[in-house]
């Protein structure tokens, strides 16, 4: 077995040194009845690289890769071009095969990039501080609600109907345990009046912008309404690239920002691993979930970085911890921070402009198809169309024509009649105008 360095001789010698007759002796604490042999497992024996590669490549070939066809899916995961140096750098052994930086003297590489990551996230979101990541945008949103419940000592969380349904369900699952979660009624792509739902029991209001339909939401009035009632505003962002063109949540009144960072540096990966961004105000840091990296000095007085405020965390505080998270999204943070470093101010804002321009051009193309209407007056790189018929079968028909034509709203909201005919369409810098033409032609066909 190529991964196992011990030879039979080694094993014998080691058993000898231990004074054990055989390997079974080391497992003597295992109840007899629970000891099984190889035959208990109807699984194959070990295989070489070539065979494994073939088996997996066969499975991979049964999927349509996004990059191989005109592609327009978004709704919480976006296909962007990731520079080659990103994937090269994150595979450096010293990044890839190290653990959480518990020993700062020999983990400054990880600690410094996390500190830089925290700074970047704070800058993008317009907040004062950010943590070193959570699992993804959905769990970050749920954690944000729990944090708001702790901070306000109030039970109720109000969720905008524009919040990604998976995020809403994840939040409900978790936050309902310790409180109450209220979802605003669905009003696709039209402003909703959340103020009515906020009361003295409300810990927070959760609003996504651009929302799941792509609509850009103005957080300011909601922030006012929430703050007026002593509630916090949690802003959710599923497409961070939008922050290169739109006002930051921090600048529009958010108290906590939960975002999905996948768009920067990370591939689609069929849904994971992604990277949850979490930022808030300085005064809330002791209630923050997740790891935090802080600056300090070593005994020679040189600047260095360490994991800090761990008294919030499970390994110190146990049942009193602010979260149970341990392993987070380390390497995805690295991909994010490298890609963002490559972009810089110029690149990131430029990328955002391109995304919006491509989406605007595409919306124009599709909107002109008879029977098709654009339901999102404003959007960043994703918008929603109303089709003259249910969207799901249309998307299947498009797929049959070799086009991945967006996400039918009904996939996320099967119970909402409202959603049945809605198609959520995204464009990014990877979307060409030829892609758009192909889409327009195929969609026209499928609708006629």
């Amino acid at each position, binding site marked *: 077995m190529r*991964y*196992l*360095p*011990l030879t039979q001789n080694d094993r014998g*010698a*080691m058993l000898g*040194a231990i004074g054990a007759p055989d390997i079974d002796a080391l*497992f003597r*604490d295992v*109840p007899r009845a*629970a000891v*099984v042999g190889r035959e208990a*497992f109807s*699984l194959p*024996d070990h295989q070489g690289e070539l065979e*494994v*590669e073939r088996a*997996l490549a066969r499975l991979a070939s049964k999927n349509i*890769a996004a990059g191989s066809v005109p592609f327009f899916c978004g709704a919480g995961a976006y296909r962007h071009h990731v520079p080659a*140096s990103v994937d090269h750098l994150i595979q*450096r052994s*010293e*990044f*890839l095969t190290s*653990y*959480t930086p518990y*020993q700062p003297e020999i*983990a400054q590489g990880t600690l*410094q990039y996390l500190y830089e990551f925290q700074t970047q996230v704070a800058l993008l979101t317009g907040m004062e*501080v950010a943590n070193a990541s959570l699992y993804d*945008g959905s769990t970050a949103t749920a954690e944000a609600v729990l944090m708001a419940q702790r901070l306000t000592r109030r039970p109720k969380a109000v969720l905008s109907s524009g919040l990604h349904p998976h995020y809403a369900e*994840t939040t*409900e699952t978790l936050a309902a345990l310790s409180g109450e979660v209220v979802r605003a009624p669905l009003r696709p792509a039209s402003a909703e009046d959340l103020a009515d739902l906020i009361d003295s029991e409300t810990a927070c209001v959760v609003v996504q912008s651009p929302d799941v339909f792509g609509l850009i939401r103005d957080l300011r009035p909601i922030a006012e309404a929430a703050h007026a009632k002593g509630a916090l505003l949690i802003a959710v962002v599923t497409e961070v690239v939008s922050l*290169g063109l*739109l*006002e*930051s949540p921090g600048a529009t009144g958010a108290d906590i920002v939960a975002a999905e960072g996948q768009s920067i540096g990370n*591939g*689609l*990966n*069929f849904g994971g691993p992604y990277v949850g961004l979490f930022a808030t105000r300085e005064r809330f840091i002791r209630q923050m979930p997740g790891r935090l990296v802080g*600056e300090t000095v070593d005994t020679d*007085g040189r600047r260095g970085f360490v994991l800090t405020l761990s008294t919030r965390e499970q*390994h*110190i*505080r146990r049942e009193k*911890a602010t979260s149970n*998270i341990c*392993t987070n999204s380390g390497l995805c943070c690295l991909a994010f921070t490298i890609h963002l*470093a*490559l*972009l*810089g*101010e110029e690149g990131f*804002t430029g990328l955002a*402009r*391109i995304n919006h321009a491509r989406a*605007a051009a595409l919306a124009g193309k599709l909107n002109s198809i008879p029977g098709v209407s654009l339901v999102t007056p404003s959007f960043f790189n994703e918008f929603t169309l109303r089709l003259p018929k249910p969207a799901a079968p249309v998307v299947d028909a498009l*797929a049959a024509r070799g086009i991945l034509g967006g996400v039918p709203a009904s996939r996320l909201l099967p119970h909402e009649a409202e959603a049945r005919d809605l198609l959520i369409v995204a464009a990014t*810098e990877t979307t060409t105008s030829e892609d758009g033409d192909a889409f327009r032609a195929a969609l026209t066909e499928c609708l006629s």
Partner: protein
Amino acid sequence: MTMNATGRPTAIETVFAQPQPTISGDRGLDHEEPLLFELGRAGVAGVDLPPTEVSEARLAGLRRQGAIGLPGLSEPEIVRHYVRLSRMNYAIDSGLYPLGSCTMKHNPRLNEKMARLPGFGDLHPLQPQQTAQGALALIAELMRWLTTLTGMPAVAMSPKAGAHGELCGLLTIRAAMAARGENRKRILVPSSAHGTNPATAALAGFTVDEVPAKGDGHVDADALKAMLGPDVAAIMLTNPNTCGLFERRIREMAEWAHQAGAYFYCDGANFNAIAGRVRPGDLGIDAMHINLHKTFSTPHGGGGPGAGPVVLSAALAPFAPLPLLMQDDKGFRLIESREDLPAGTQPFGRMCAFHGQMGMFVRALAYMLSHGADGIRQASEDAVLAANYILASLKGTLSAPFEGPCMHEALFDDAFLAGTGVTTLDFAKAMIDEGYHPMTMYFPLVVHGAMLIEPTESESKESLDRFIAVMRGLAEEAKAGNHARFAEAPYLAPRRRLDETRAARKPILRWTPQVLSEAAK
């Protein structure tokens, strides 16, 4: 900065005298590296994008006004920045990494390559399912391996790490209880448990009762039995436990729990000790998470990402969270909402967006196919063998609180340091100077100054022998009273010991431009 500048007595200096500073501040191949924000400037970028202007029409008047403040750097600078940072890290690939409970085993590069196949890496989670049948088939195949290896009927795939899996498991239990019309509040957790266990129990809305450990490192089964009652929802044990021992009486404890109407959650972080030899399903376990980033070697990546699928007993299976993966004559299908649930399923909710850590699934399956059932069994045996070899070789030098044999990790305490003035922490830092990553320290909490050593199956006998020799050498040094070697360690790392108190007292969690920080004052 020279040592003297820090004013420590030169007696200590003589242990590992620090050379005088260089002009550059760099030292040979060891470069200091500023922050991105200190390196960057306007007018340069690491990408080239077609210049594009946009109209305001669709922006709802919310176009960003101010600048973000991101630094500009060219690609060569970026590459150098991260290469230099990486060189300040210790890694499995550069040396033995005996971090107990963390299972720092070899991460095959084949798995990285497979995860990057466009057919896996470039798939959208919401693209039509008929265009992702190969991906769903891969998840199904991984589920088959996990259920077969654990002898459990079902598995929930969406949890994103071990702690998330614990949460998933406890919420499943909570849902099963509720379905029985019960609302039990207590969960019994041993004092030796990993911090995530009590934290998760609390998060899931339970109260935590601590089960004491016995002097032999095993959970006090009789105490546990006594604590069981009508308000106990579950027992939450780790097996093999965090002392590196297999809970001898685990099946009894399972029985008692079941008799008391409670479920048995097992923390499976240490499954790597028994995979291929013991099936948790045969132990009476109802739910157990598996850290794919430990047992099945998906890279830790400096802290993540991981994946924590949870295997479930027949009693709990119906309550597994969304999404569910089904197979019918038309192929594989994901059930993503309550609308079209198969009969008998009552998912408690959803753990996260989409369907879990696909990237980790590919790597884990590549690991499994490469090892095969025979290799997985052998890997477990080698891991246990290596730990026992270390235990046997070092117990005369360090102090082992418990009788062997152990499972995949060897636990020592700090008794051997009594009177030396050297602490477990000091000893660990001295290991750094010797080129080793320290073992897990001060965990589990049930022994004093714990040193938990997990060599994994990835180390050769030669490597283990070197490690043992160095540990002996250090122990002798400590006993010989060479205090400075430990108290001031590390001397030879990119940084000396860092001031963690200062970091926590006045937290600086981000870089700020001078102006800003001035303002702050």
